[in-house]
């Protein structure tokens, strides 16, 4: 699998994500700096990592969304290349407009850093095929701005079209309809606040995140 991890100034989960991808797929991803303007010719997966790109200036993900490489990422997403944005990567995807809505300050005002239970809402996506619909999985979160907001129409569309990939199975950050991860209309772009790359090996205390990458490998090769 030819994959790439986009690295912004202030990304801090880029190496964890690269290790997870390499460990599961057997091939290390290309690490691409945000100032680049092109992606490798053949690309099967683009991953946007967690962190605090540009120090979260203006709004989380706002500056990264306007960095040079994102034009190439948007073009690839439009061509159907799978794109996953985790945590700050999710914020970048909403700021880019590849996903609807916005991620706001957690309702409790506090940074939340712990394992949380998620419910897999749609198991028929390139990202979730190794999970069962309705399955409860444990994935860590670590964010201050994970409170998902969208207007009612958008939320109804997401729900009606099976575009909610994961929901929190417990109170975490005040997200509307407990949304933890959503898909674009075509289903090839996933944004999620929890960090699957942090639970891929028993040495990390669990492997519930591993199946996301295994599913991707299976679907996109």
């Amino acid at each position, binding site marked *: 699998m030819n994959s790439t991890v986009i690295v912004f100034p202030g990304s801090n989960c880029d190496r964890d994500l690269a290790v997870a991808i390499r460990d599961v797929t057997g091939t290390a991803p290309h690490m691409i700096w945000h100032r680049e303007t092109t992606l490798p010719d053949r690309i099967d997966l683009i991953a946007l990592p967690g962190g605090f790109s540009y120090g979260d200036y203006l709004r989380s993900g706002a500056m990264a969304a*306007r960095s040079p490489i994102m034009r190439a990422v948007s073009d690839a997403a439009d061509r159907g290349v799978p794109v996953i944005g985790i945590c700050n990567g999710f914020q970048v995807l909403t700021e880019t407009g590849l996903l609807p809505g*916005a991620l706001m*300050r957690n309702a*409790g005002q506090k940074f939340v850093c712990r394992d949380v239970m998620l419910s897999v809402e749609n198991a028929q996506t390139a990202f979730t095929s190794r999970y069962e619909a309705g399955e409860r999985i444990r994935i860590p979160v670590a964010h201050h701005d994970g*409170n998902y*907001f969208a207007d009612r129409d958008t939320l109804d569309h997401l729900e009606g079209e099976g575009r909610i990939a994961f929901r929190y199975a417990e109170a975490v950050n005040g997200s509307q309809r407990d949304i933890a991860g959503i898909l674009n209309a075509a289903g090839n772009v996933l944004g999620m606040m929890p960090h699957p790359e942090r639970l891929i090996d028993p040495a990390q205390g669990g492997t519930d995140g591993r199946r996301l990458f295994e599913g991707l490998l299976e679907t996109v090769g």
Partner: protein
Amino acid sequence: MKVRITVTLKPGVLDPQGKAIEHALASLGFTGVDAARVGKLIDLEVAEGTTDADLEAMCRKLLANTVIENFHIERA
């Protein structure tokens, strides 16, 4: 030319920071504060001849996230 952009959360969008400020004011004994909302103020120094359309485009493309925020442009 100086331009002041004010970015505020849309009505109905929860503002936990504003809520915390509201409660802090109450705990300091300031009664009668019914709501507090936090926004942003961005001062720009722009070339003469910058049009309203230019300024609005700056707000829409970067300075405000119109999913959750409104903006107001004021020329000094």
